[in-house]
């Protein structure tokens, strides 16, 4: 088992008319909660989709847990999309059952535990859930998997502060950092900061900074927000 959960080697991803990811190489360590920060359109979602095997690099290679990230990487990765991906006609409980059928590593017992922790109603259909509750249900689905890498694209976006708090608490409670690594993209930097071990800053399709949060505060005496501003300005 390699020390790294993720490795990007000279990765380029071109979309028509633009380089979304521009020759990026980096590795991510295991057992950490990692934040992916950067302005809109900087390439965060593309980086996450490359890890999830949903997007293929134009050049270079992406490996997750030692395996090339392609369509068959789903067993190694729990991916939470920024989009609304729940079937509207399933109840919360049925959604859990459906996901348990999709993924071998889905822990149904844990899912039910998280459901009560999050105070989600089991028998309400997804289409009748509020945005906050749909947000919770999506997190629940990702956290119930025992995949070595959990990817979350904007799990806090557009949710009220109480829901964000519950989501952050459930991240602390239900991920197993001895065996899992979490990567989440977010703009809610101040709120996410206490749970992050390290951050990766992205700008214009390139990695413009990467450091431990303790280092940022200790050595540089900066909050994550100030560090981001400095990093992005370079």
């Amino acid at each position, binding site marked *: 088992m390699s020390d790294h959960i993720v490795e990007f080697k000279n990765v380029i991803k071109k979309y028509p008319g633009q380089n979304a990811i521009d020759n990026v190489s980096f590795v991510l360590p295991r*057992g*950490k*909660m990692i934040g992916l920060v950067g302005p809109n359109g900087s390439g965060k979602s593309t980086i996450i989709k490359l890890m999830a095997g949903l997007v293929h690099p134009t050049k270079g290679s992406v490996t997750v847990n030692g395996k090339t990230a392609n369509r068959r990487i789903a067993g190694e990765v729990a991916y939470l999309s920024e989009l609304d991906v729940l079937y509207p006609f399933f109840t919360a409980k049925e959604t859990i059952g459906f996901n348990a059928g999709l993924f071998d590593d889905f822990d149904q017992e844990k899912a039910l535990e998280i459901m009560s922790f999050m105070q989600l109603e089991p028998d309400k259909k997804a289409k009748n859930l509020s945005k906050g509750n749909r947000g919770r249900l999506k997190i629940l689905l990702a956290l119930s998997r025992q995949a070595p890498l959990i990817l979350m694209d904007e799990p806090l976006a557009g949710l009220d502060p109480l829901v964000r*708090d519950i989501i*952050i*608490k459930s991240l*602390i*409670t239900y991920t197993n*950092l001895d065996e899992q690594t979490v990567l989440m993209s977010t703009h809610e930097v101040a*709120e996410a*900061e*206490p*749970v*992050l*071990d390290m951050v990766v800053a992205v700008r214009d399709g390139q990695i413009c900074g990467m450091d431990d*949060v*303790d280092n940022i*505060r*200790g050595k540089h*005496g*900066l*909050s994550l*927000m*100030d560090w981001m501003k400095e990093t992005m300005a370079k």
Partner: protein
Amino acid sequence: MSQSFKTNQPIYAQIVGRLCRQLVRGELQAGDKLPSVRDMAVQSGVNPNTIQRVYAELERQEIAETRRGLGTFITESKSRLRQVREELKNEQIVNFIADMKDMGFGPDEIVEGVRKELANSKERGDY
């Protein structure tokens, strides 16, 4: 969030500081068991890795000790705990003096000011 943190100091160091204050105030006592890493993480709203670092730091400073399979405990050593109290006091005073000096106050002014304020608060019955 359950607790807020200052921005310019590592979170683990701030939690270590908080626990030391609780010790000095007597809210935590010699031999007390600290919560498990995960419980402490949830209580403080921080990452479990951070709490691991907190406990490691407390051990390094001989304020706590981890007993295999049992958890992390505050040291039984009363003398170490008295030392912590002394250290915390000195640290506060050093910071206070640095701040005052920074604003241009001399030693006599500082001592005089502190004495006056202590007398005032005694009169008000706050201290």
